[in-house]
């Protein structure tokens, strides 16, 4: 195996170490997993009752199919969960390490900064898809929502581009936390605002026309829209290709800015000697 290959394997093993660490921490909280699943069930029930109050005529059409509110919001919540990892968890994980006092010890190991960033949330990257699957299972099994089976691959492609896009924003937030220590609150606010303003819970068409037009340009809104068009409307690769290209470009820009922000923050912390401060 080449040196690069050995390093790659070694960095991959480190990711397994992070997963193992987080599973052990989770097991130490015993009821946390069950509480989370119960929370998902309650969330589904809540949105079911909200859906009963929603006027079906107010719901948008995708590929000629009028969306039910449960299907609409189910996709919003599923994608929103990934946004929470990318935006919220990357930031809060670094903050947690700072507060625990372990961040400096992590930086003293010969681990790449990117591996550290991924490692801190790799457990979520595994757990959240499972959690999302459980959520969608409840939505489909209990509340009768149907998604187009042929849309799974295009929807996963949307997700595949959506995650690095929000990840880049999360890294930008992580850079802010490393620098300002209290950036987490701002990132949380931005995350919530982006969720609401991108149509996770209601169609953007309900907003004033000009505002809706502006917000629909947000990459997050584009991702939500593309996922709904394929999962609800059954649209294929050709129909959502514009959205995929837009998301890919956004992901490249976002990742570039995020990587720069974290690198600059780490260099600054070394220069200032404040890596362990919190």
């Amino acid at each position, binding site marked *: 195996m080449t040196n690069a290959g050995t390093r790659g394997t070694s960095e991959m093993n480190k990711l397994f170490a992070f997963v193992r660490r987080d599973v052990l921490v989770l097991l130490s909280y015993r009821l946390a997993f069950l509480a989370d699943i119960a929370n998902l069930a309650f969330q589904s029930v809540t949105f079911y009752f909200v859906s009963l109050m929603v006027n079906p005529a107010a719901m948008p059409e995708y590929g000629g199919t009028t969306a039910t509110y449960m299907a609409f919001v189910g996709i919003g919540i599923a994608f929103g969960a990934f946004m929470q990892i990318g935006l919220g968890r990357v930031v809060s994980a670094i903050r947690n390490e700072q507060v625990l*006092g372990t961040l400096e010890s992590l930086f*003293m190991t010969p681990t790449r900064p990117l591996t550290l960033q991924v490692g801190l949330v790799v457990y979520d990257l595994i757990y959240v898809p499972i959690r999302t699957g459980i959520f969608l299972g409840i939505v489909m099994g209990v509340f009768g929502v149907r998604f187009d089976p042929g849309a799974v691959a295009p929807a996963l492609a949307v997700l595949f581009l959506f995650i690095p896009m929000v990840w880049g924003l999360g890294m930008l937030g992580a850079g802010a936390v490393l620098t300002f220590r209290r950036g987490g609150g701002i990132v949380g606010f931005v995350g919530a605002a982006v969720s609401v303003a991108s149509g996770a819970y209601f169609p953007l068409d309900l907003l004033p026309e000009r505002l809706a037009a502006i917000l629909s340009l947000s990459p997050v809104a584009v991702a939500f829209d593309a996922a709904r068009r394929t999962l609800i409307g059954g649209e294929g690769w050709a129909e959502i290709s514009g959205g995929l290209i837009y998301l890919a470009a956004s992901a490249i820009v976002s990742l570039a800015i995020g990587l720069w922000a974290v690198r600059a923050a780490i260099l600054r912390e070394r220069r200032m*000697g404040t890596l362990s401060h919190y």
Partner: protein
Amino acid sequence: MIEALGVSRAFGPKEVVSGLDLKVPGGTIHALLGPNGAGKTTVLRMLAGLTSPTGGTVRVLDGDPVTREIRARIGWIPSGDRSFYLRLSGRENLVFFARLYGMSLRTARERSDELLEKVDLVEAARQPARLYSHGMQKRLVIARGLLTDPPVLIVDEATHDLDPTSAQNVRSLVTEASSTGAAVVWATQRLEEIRSFAHDVTVLGRGDVRFSGGVDKLVKRALNRTYEIQLVNGFAPLPLIESNLVGLAELSAHPFYSDRFLLHLGSGTALSDVFQGIERAGAKVHSCAEARSDIEEAFLHLTAEDNDD
């Protein structure tokens, strides 16, 4: 192995380390000695690559300690308790960090068990780290620092707050690492521990180097000690008192206190004889106390102005 040349570090307008030169070859223990705020931790952090110097250069193992390749070979033992996952056991903490140093799960477990035995934490190995006492957490930090058998050990106040037996165990582990070729930098405020433990010492005071050299050399710089006395009715001139002490003891001015003297007893002289000699000269002894240990005296002398504040 460790080399610092003209290293300075400023935080804003305040320079906390200034013009530090340090060379620590493999197989030696170099103590960094100084009171609180002397700049010891800042020096260690620069040697570990965690803080960049604002002046001068730091080289560790012929490389820049900021790089991952060099960091992989530095054992970092920070001060303070907060550097572990409190929900995980001591063993699992070690296993996790060992894997970040590139070990397989199996090797990480074996190495962790080995070190837990060395730092006497076998019985507590499976307890969550949050249940560890301060001393136990400290020993766990030491174990983590030794995970890779590093050729460089940077140790910050490792024995602070430890009971004498635990402190001795920690020093033994570090001595063992040094005897197998590791270069060790050991920051401490515990003066007594550097004698017969460290080979060289740098005394820092407000970031300035006050002394650098062998520990024996530091001790030699100490004042010859015996007793510190305070006189009353001290109108008697010093030469008159001294003339009454010929053959018994020597009296000299105290380096820091104008109303006290240092009394160096001659061999076989009883204190009562000296007191009588002083009284014959027209003065009386108000107080008499055994002077500090030579190494402590040297340290206080070198950092006197810092402690006066």
